């Protein structure tokens, strides 16, 4: 299982928003998209995705509608609302700042005397 990472708590929402921002997706599609763009590095428990999706819908960041999937099955598709788009931008900026900071902290070496 090397190369795979458990996602950090609180980052699932951001991942979902990012995945959906590339185009409307049903739940399983969100999973596949995250797997695909992270090159299978991020592992999400399948069932745990749905409560997060529902929460985002309730917060008005996503909107959902029923449609038909590529497999010709009925499925619920999620897309970003304008509020969701805004939130994604903010969260992504926040995350990048944090990641840069973390990276530079971790890259620090003892100063030579």
């Amino acid at each position, binding site marked *: 299982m090397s190369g795979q990472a458990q996602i950090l708590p609180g980052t699932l929402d951001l991942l979902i928003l990012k995945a959906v921002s590339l185009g409307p997706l049903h739940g399983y599609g969100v999973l596949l998209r995250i797997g695909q763009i992270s090159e299978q590095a991020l592992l999400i428990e399948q069932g745990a995705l*749905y409560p997060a999706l529902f929460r985002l819908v*309730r917060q008005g960041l996503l909107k959902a509608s029923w449609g038909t999937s590529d497999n010709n099955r009925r499925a*619920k598709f999620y897309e970003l609302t304008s509020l969701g788009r805004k939130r994604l931008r903010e969260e992504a900026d926040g995350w990048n700042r944090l990641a840069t900071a973390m990276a530079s902290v971790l890259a620090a070496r003892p100063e030579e005397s």
Partner: protein
Amino acid sequence: MNLTAYFRSLTAKFLHRSAAEDETEEELRSHIQHRADDLERSGLDRTAAERRAHIEFGGQVRFKEECLEALGGNVLETCVQDIRFSLRVLRKSPGFTFAAILTLALAIGANAVVFGLLNGLILRPLNVPQAESLWAIERGPYKVVNHSYPDYLDFRDRNRSFDGLAAYNVTSVGLDTGNNPTAAWILETTGNYFDVLRIQPYLGRFFHSTDEHGPNSAPYIVLSYGYWQSHFQGDRGVVGRIVGLNKHPFTILGVTPPGFQGNLLFVAPDFWAPIVNQEQIEGDYVLDARGKREILMVLGHLKAGITRAQAISDLNSIGAELEKSYPKDDGHMTFALARPSLAGDWLGGPILGFLAGLMMLAGLILLAACANLGSLFAARAADRTREMALRLALGSSRARILKQLFTEAVLISLAGGAIGLWGSILLLHGLVAWSPLPGVSVLHLPVDPDAKVYAVALMLALVSGILFGIVPVRQVLRTDPYEIVKSGSRTTEGRRVTFREVLLAVQIAICAVLVTSSMVAVRGLLRSIHSDLGFEPRNAMLVETALNMAGYRGESIPTMQKRIIDALKALSGVTSVGSVDRPPLYYGANIAHVFTDTTADLRPSNAAADAATYNISPGYFQAAATGLLLGRTFTWHDDKNALPVAVVNRQFANRIFGSVKGALGGHYKRADGTRIQVVGIVENGKYANLAEDPTLAMFLPVLQTPATPMTFVIRSNRDSQQLIAEIKKTLRNLDAALPFTVQTWSRELDSALFGARVATISLGVLGAMGAMLSITGIFGMAAYSVSKRLKELGIRLALGAQRKEVLQAALGRAFKLLAFGSAAGLILGILASRVLAAIVYQATPRDPLVLAGVVLTMALLGLAATWLPAQRALSLDPSTLLREE
């Protein structure tokens, strides 16, 4: 998201609950199908792919619930779900549900009734404006509520603490509205009564202090709203009408407002009249006598800003001045303030004590019921470990399971509470309509339930639901789904004492306390009924009347009295007739100071003793069947022209004269200086109440000390119903205008036994409830332990165990708990019974019969409760049993 939208979605989710749920389910299903499609493409066959997809997905139910929770509105939703599920579970075990609801209904009902009494009699303020500043004045170390009129005038005029002081007295009169007079109960009050209480008339006007101009100067009455409705049909023209009050003309001034029933909670007077007309109302004017301290009760509002303590010290300084000015009147002029609604501490003290005791017992009942239900719930939870383990394994959270168990408990407690409250409301309404003492129509209990009672019942229901719901919590938290699902049965029970057993022992102890106290009370009551009263109530009738109600005055009273006695004596079957001013044990007794013959200074502190005083006619002792020990009884020649004489009881003779023989022919003095010769001695009896110590009594001839209220005692050997009809006819023939009541003496005595009887009935009911609770408790425990150990018992039987050993194994613990709990309860009950002795005459727990009774009762209860489980244990067939498992 804004709040309205949230609530809209909340209600929408609540209303279309299943729609949201269906949709979520469909979405999760769709996910699994998509996953299965992918897996199928990678080479699995469809069935395998679907199975794999399901497993990968994880707990579907759990995620569905989390989704719904994330959707909002889920608190309500899960609640509704829990309630539905609980109802289904409870419906599946109707026996358990029924027993649990019944237990709680009884326990909560008992609490609601007792609280209703407490609320109506003690907590609820009197229905007058600013009731919180209204106080009654009590005097002396015994907190006497009665005062004399001159004392009242001094309080009223000299105090600086009260916004006016009024005085009043309860009495009965004959009211003639054109037809024959009927007896009515009234409040005689000072003129300022309504002004002091700040009451405005509903109709007409009230009397005021400006209407008082000396004796008989204010012949006015004010009707109560209820009496105006029932006797004058709400006729607005009554104002100004003249009616006959004891045959004297009185003018109706007005009507009080509907909610106002005087300042005494339990007496709703028919009307009010000024006390300056006392001579016309009571036949006697004693307002000028400072020493007549049993006349009036005094009440008033404290001025704004004056505290109770300030008012008391103000009154005490007036008292000190009075003691200095009137040294001959030994009045104990120190004061206290009490609520006027129960005549101060006179009734308020015992009622509060009794109700507080009852409340405590009712609380114990509820606690016992909770312990009982708690152990039942724990047993059920143990039986349902498998179900719970399955639910845990399927992804349900422990919190959710606990919530559901609590929902069950609260549902049961609410149902029980509702039924209990309903029953208690019926009972309280019955008590409101009930007239507790025969012959006193105005007595009532204003205990109609209000919002407070409902709130308390609801709160008790919720608290008890949580109390017994909490018992199985630890069990659920400890449940290990894997172990249980694997092994199929619970882990074997250890030998140590479980929490459930402690609960049961506590409950049995509580029940034993209740059974003990109710037995002590019942036994005390039986003893009081059969104790030596000094008269024989059986085969005797009482006719109560007051000749002044029909206009008799002065010399015409004894003449009429003699006519009545002769006429009653002439009835067939009547053996003797006599009269007494107030029969013994009729709401206390008239007590007077007695002085030895040698005492010259007759101030109260020099009195040799106090004696119950009776004014009787010749023939009274025969009619009452009071035994004469020595000397003679009275004749009609013991009149004003003869020497003052008395018959005394044995206690009197022993105390004042040293012996019965020494008393005959001896002399003593009364407070007014009359020197009286003792001509006869009778046996001791009970006078003021059944619980009293031997009391002194003196009987005076009615012709020497006239009295207006009069009770005729008629002894006969005839059927009482027939005799009552004949007595009524005879009296009507003598004077159709004379109001009177007739009843058997035994019935009349109910009033004397009232307190003891109420105490016994309430304790009896609580004791019976306690007994029932312990039966269900022991039964539950025994039945449970037998069913849990069926396998073990079967093996024992198969290995050749004797019946005795099987019983020992199955029920030994139940019996041990019973014995332990009963012993603890018995000891506690004996300690508690000391309190009872105050209410119930001769209530002593050190009575072998009571002790034996309690032990026997508890043993019988245990036997009854374990009978069925024991039968089940004994009828086991080891072969079928072992095969089944």
